[in-house]
């Protein structure tokens, strides 16, 4: 879907992004992680031409983005940023409708889309439509910011630290919302974050940037198992890598026949949560169910094995 070929960007003699080649498959989430100043935001902003590459090419669906005037290109790409950038003088509905209006959608279609998005984010359209951004909580503002980015049903969504300003609980919910929406619309997402946990949690693949260079690009499990450089290892943190790995996997594949005492856990539970439950309830094995039907059991030993280095 998105192809970057040997892309570099130089600002006043300083190379901010150096020779990055990267491909984002359609319908997947790529998270770009790195310290501040690593060039990750510049990389993102080159995809919708907010910044032009100094050298290299970027293609979307096989077409060089330089062939499209920047403002038209951006109307086809959702863009959500930290601090959400909502227009303070426009209502929630007007903010969400910005891109559809730029694309000359008819009024009824815009209104329907606004209500659909508000409902999608669990905000009552009647109560929120006519509010100003200042009258919303931080979490609500952030959701409207993402809703605006999705308004024109873009195939691609670029997000720069979209959850950076949220507290942990709201942040967790926003991440779940994003996964749901991504699956529903099959959107291709590039998300920039400095938080490795968020990157591991959301990304189908993770790109790690350091000093302008792409040092590793891999699925979460591979990254955890084999960090390409010491820097990636530091970013991952050495202490609880086993648990991060366990958090990526679910118990579904580990079910074996046999009895186990106590209440069952759902098959979609992560290995990490299942192990915690096993330790906490002092049960060496837990029953696993799907849709109320017991599938079998999962043993603590099987769970523990998932934490080992791949």
């Amino acid at each position, binding site marked *: 879907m998105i192809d970057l070929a040997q892309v570099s960007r130089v600002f006043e003699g300083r190379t901010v992004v150096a020779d990055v080649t990267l491909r984002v498959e359609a319908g997947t989430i790529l998270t770009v992680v790195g310290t501040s100043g690593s060039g990750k935001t510049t990389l993102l902003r080159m995809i919708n031409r*907010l910044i032009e590459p100094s050298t290299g090419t970027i293609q979307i669906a096989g077409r060089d983005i330089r062939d499209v005037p920047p403002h038209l*290109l951006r109307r086809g790409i959702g863009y959500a940023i930290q*601090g959400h950038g909502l227009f*303070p*003088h426009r209502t929630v509905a007007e903010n969400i409708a910005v891109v559809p209006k*730029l694309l000359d959608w008819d009024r009824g279609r815009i209104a329907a889309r606004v209500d659909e998005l508000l409902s999608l984010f669990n905000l009552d359209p009647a109560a929120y439509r006519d509010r100003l951004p200042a009258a919303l909580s931080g979490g609500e503002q952030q959701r409207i910011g993402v809703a*605006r*980015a999705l308004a024109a049903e873009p195939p691609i969504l670029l997000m720069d630290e979209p959850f950076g300003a949220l507290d942990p609980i709201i942040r967790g919910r926003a991440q779940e919302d994003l996964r749901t929406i991504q699956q529903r619309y099959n959107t291709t997402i590039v998300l920039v974050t400095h938080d490795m946990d968020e990157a591991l949690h959301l990304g189908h693949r993770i790109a790690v940037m350091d000093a302008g260079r792409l040092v590793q690009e891999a699925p979460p499990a591979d990254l955890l198992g084999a960090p390409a450089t010491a820097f990636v290892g530091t970013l991952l943190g050495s202490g609880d890598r086993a648990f991060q790995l366990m958090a990526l996997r679910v118990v579904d594949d580990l079910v074996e026949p046999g009895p186990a005492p106590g209440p069952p856990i759902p098959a979609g539970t992560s290995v990490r949560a299942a192990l915690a439950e096993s330790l906490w309830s002092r049960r060496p094995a837990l029953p696993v169910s799907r849709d109320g039907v017991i599938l079998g059991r999962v043993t603590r030993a099987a769970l523990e094995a998932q934490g080992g280095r791949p």
Partner: protein
Amino acid sequence: MGGHSATGLLRPGVDPLGSAFAALLGLSLLALPLMTTRPNRIAAGTGLTAWSALPSGAVLLLGGVVALGLPLLALRAAPPLRLAAAAAILLLLGLSAGWAADHLTLPGDRYGRVSPDAGWWLAFATAALAVGDGLARLRPGPILRIALLALLVGATGLALRTGFWNNLSVLREYASRSDTFGRELRTHAVLALTSVAAAAALGIPAAILARPVPALRTGLLATLNVVQTIPSMALFGMLIAPLAWIGRAVPGAAALGIAGIGAAPAFVALLAYALLPVAAATVAGLDAVPWPVRDAARGVGMTARQRLLQVELPLALPAILTGIRIVLVQNIGLAVIAGLVGGGGLGVFVFQGISQNAGDLVLLGALPTVAMATGAAVLLDAVVDLSRGRAAERVP
């Protein structure tokens, strides 16, 4: 009875500011002369206290209202009650000036002058401040403020139209110049308004264009800043010669009213003074648009023109309007100088009055100027608040 009895009409204790108002009002009405009478417009005057200047009925009424109102101001009365007391005293002082003038003017005397003296001015200013304080405590919204201003203008206009104050010396002065007064008042207003409109039409686009280019932006603001330091009289005067030359040399210029005498130098000078505040306010307003908002506007695919018209200018509007408020008030005041260079306006009366040593004539020019400037300030402050309305609470 807790400490929170803000809803009560009277709370125990003394209001420090209100007591100061009450003391000043009492002092000015009891110890200072209320009115002055003079045998003619430039003779020395004789001061008269309230009880000798007013007919007995009016003395009783004024005394009664003041005796009731002063304790309300001094004690910790509820804000609406204080406001009512102050407004009543202010109204009665306005009426008293008319009553005293009628009372003290001998039938058929066309040369005698009756004018407010120190006591009246001090009491009037104090009562006006007390009204302002009452309003400040109640925090009326912009619409209500405009309505109050309209009410005040309407009431004053009605009193002037019905000739209620006709025996006051300022209006005697007006009576002998009623034909020129209307013309100069119009000239004054037109000079101030058109120069500000032209400054907005030139300054806002110039600021928008120059802002992104650091050298242009610094140059523009520095140049306009130097213009501000030229004293107004000198700038008006310096423009006479070049405009006279343009009027003679450029075909058609004279037909447009460009000449060394008349309103042209005044207009150009006022325009020059108005440019800096308008341009600086536009630059500051646009600079204050938050970065994420700017970035989002680009990111959603707005063109430069759409960003300017739909996002940046609407958000900068309150700041720009504040700049326009400042220059309009400033230019209403500066337009007085036009009277010195033959540009007309209310300054004509001010400077004639100064040269004739006729205080009443000075007042005839100065009072409408002050009223116009203050009215414009109140009106535009309300408009700025209205424009802030939707984006009032900026997202941090």
